[in-house]
């Protein structure tokens, strides 16, 4: 690798530019798509549509933040969506005891779910895919049992629906939730000790342990945080929907993973970041929204999503190699 070592020092402007250009692939894709769609549909750049996009991507975005953390810790949480569902159900069922109770309980439940995952993966060291696969089924089932699978009626309480419907300074309240989450997670991940330790753990657990990092705690924490943010997302979700049911969330899982990976966070752990995820979310959101604006039939929407995912990652990989040349 001495070659790379040597060239680092002698970067011409052209090289620096190329380096930047090729490292910001996804951002470029986002911009291109943005322009393309706004040309294709005149409805795209309306404030109402902007509202829709934010509304529709808030929950996904919040979950994506949590997932980013888990994936950077060299894991993945297939139970995220089920946690969302479980919390939503709990939240709605307890609303009759007041919103404070219901929301806090929901958040506690979500965190507890994260704890279960974290304990089994971090401490017991069981395989994370199978564990979260198991808990996914477990949480969904629990949600079903307590909800009786009914369309639970979320009694819209002023403050509560306020989150879902109102807007401040022309930006929906949910938007602020989204922004807050991203900023918070950005700081947590890139500016705190635990964040740094998480990266170390994700890159090389053994070295991290030698460096005095209690890796099993770090991993456990990452899942707990994920559980927590899922529960918060569930509150936002329930505030938006008059009715909640378990099926609600099950679709979200792969979308969330797609978003994170689109952003460029590597499933191999230790590489990635919140900003990347934000870009990923952007791409995902405008594609989904753009397609339904253009009235593309459902089945093809799915297909296009898939194709875009693959192409985007291909293109990124291609540029990664390019990048090494410069």
């Amino acid at each position, binding site marked *: 690798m001495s070659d790379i070592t040597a060239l680092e020092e002698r970067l011409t402007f052209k090289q620096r530019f190329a380096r930047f250009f090729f490292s910001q692939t996804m951002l470029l894709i986002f911009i291109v798509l943005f322009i393309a769609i706004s040309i294709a549909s005149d409805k795209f750049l309306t404030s109402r*549509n902007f509202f*829709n996009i934010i509304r529709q991507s808030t929950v996904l975005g919040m979950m994506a933040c949590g997932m980013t953390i888990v994936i950077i810790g060299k894991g993945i949480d297939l139970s995220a969506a089920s946690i969302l569902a479980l919390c939503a159900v709990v939240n709605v069922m307890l609303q009759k005891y007041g919103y404070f109770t219901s929301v806090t309980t929901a958040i506690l439940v979500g965190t507890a779910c994260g704890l279960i995952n974290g304990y089994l993966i971090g401490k017991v060291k069981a395989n994370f895919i199978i564990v979260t696969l198991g808990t996914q089924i477990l949480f969904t089932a629990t949600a*079903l049992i307590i909800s009786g699978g*009914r369309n639970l009626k979320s009694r819209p309480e002023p403050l509560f629906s306020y989150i879902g419907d109102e807007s401040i300074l022309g930006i929906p309240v949910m938007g602020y939730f989204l922004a807050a989450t991203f900023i918070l997670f950005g700081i947590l991940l890139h500016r705190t000790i635990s964040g740094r330790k998480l990266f170390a753990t994700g890159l090389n657990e053994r070295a991290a342990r030698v460096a005095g990092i209690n890796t099993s705690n770090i991993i456990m924490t990452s899942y707990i945080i994920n559980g927590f943010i899922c529960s918060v997302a569930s509150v936002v979700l329930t505030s938006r929907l008059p*009715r909640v049911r378990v099926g609600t969330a*099950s679709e979200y899982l792969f979308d969330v993973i797609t978003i994170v990976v689109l952003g460029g966070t590597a499933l191999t752990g230790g590489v990635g970041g919140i900003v990347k995820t934000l870009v990923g979310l952007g791409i995902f959101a405008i594609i989904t929204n753009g397609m339904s*604006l253009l009235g593309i039939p459902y089945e093809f929407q799915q297909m296009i999503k898939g194709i875009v995912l693959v192409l985007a990652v291909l293109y990124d990989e291609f540029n990664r190699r390019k990048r090494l040349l410069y």
Partner: protein
Amino acid sequence: MFKKLTIFIVLVFLASFAFAGGGQEAEGAASGEKQITVGFSLPFIEDSPYTFPFAESLRREAKERNWKLIMTDAGGDINTQSNQIEDLVSKGVDGIMIMPVDAAGIVAVIKRVYEETDGELPMICSNVMPDPPELDELIGFAGPNSYLEGKEMGKYYVNYLRENGIDKVNYCESQGTAGYSAAIDRHNGFLDAVEELGASDMFNLLDTQPCDWSPDKAQAQTENWITTYGDKLDMIYSHNDGMGIGIVNALQDAGYSPGDVLVNGCDGQTQAVEYIKEGWMLFTVFQSPAEDAATAMRTMEKILGGESVPYWNYMETPIINGDNAEDYLPIVTELWEQ
């Protein structure tokens, strides 16, 4: 070490089965000499708010008759369902009721079981009719007629528009999960009704999308429809209440007022009936899971009792609209929010 392992596994199994299955077993033993056992194969509990009250009612009905009821959940997979039906046969039940995951796919297993048991074992379909609907191997069908429901809804819209002297509407259709027969039936039923009433030119389809019976998908979809078509949008034909509710919610967010866009539902869920009261929804078709379950059990009881039953045993699916919403509200509330 291996001992520990074994013990652990055994415990987990027994534990999970015990607390999960214990209840029924006891009940079964309670009754006297000839214990009747019936099986019911459900399609996908998780994804439908309908099947839960339905299952509850089934249990109640079984208790009343002091039957032992074995229910299975196919998790939305037709092959799993076929397997479970065969499992029920191996378990040795006296009769099987089937709510098919897939109308066409279910036929094969029905035929298979019929052959294996030389037609000794009575089977009926419930809620979802097989495709083709008339099967020699099947004793009959019990439940709603989702095709007729589709027609009902079509008819209602046509009449409503004619009464109000509206001669043309631009509408979007929010479908049930793509590929599921209820969705297909309600889609076709609607169109056929419109056809038969010679009102085809009254309805101009803007867009049709499957929203998977899911309120939030329908809500998101509607938000996009509103953005795309704006005031052109006069009516949204929804395949069930869940989606209808999502649609109404989207309309409310977008600052519409009741009646601006005609929305319907199907099932008669509480929220929907409330929306009808408030004028957000035009009407819904009341398909009571309890009644549905009861119909199935009644039919099966007759069959086991040796009575002959007609092939088609339809349940009542009355229309709920502004006029009778008040009266239905307590009924549906009791039913869904139990």
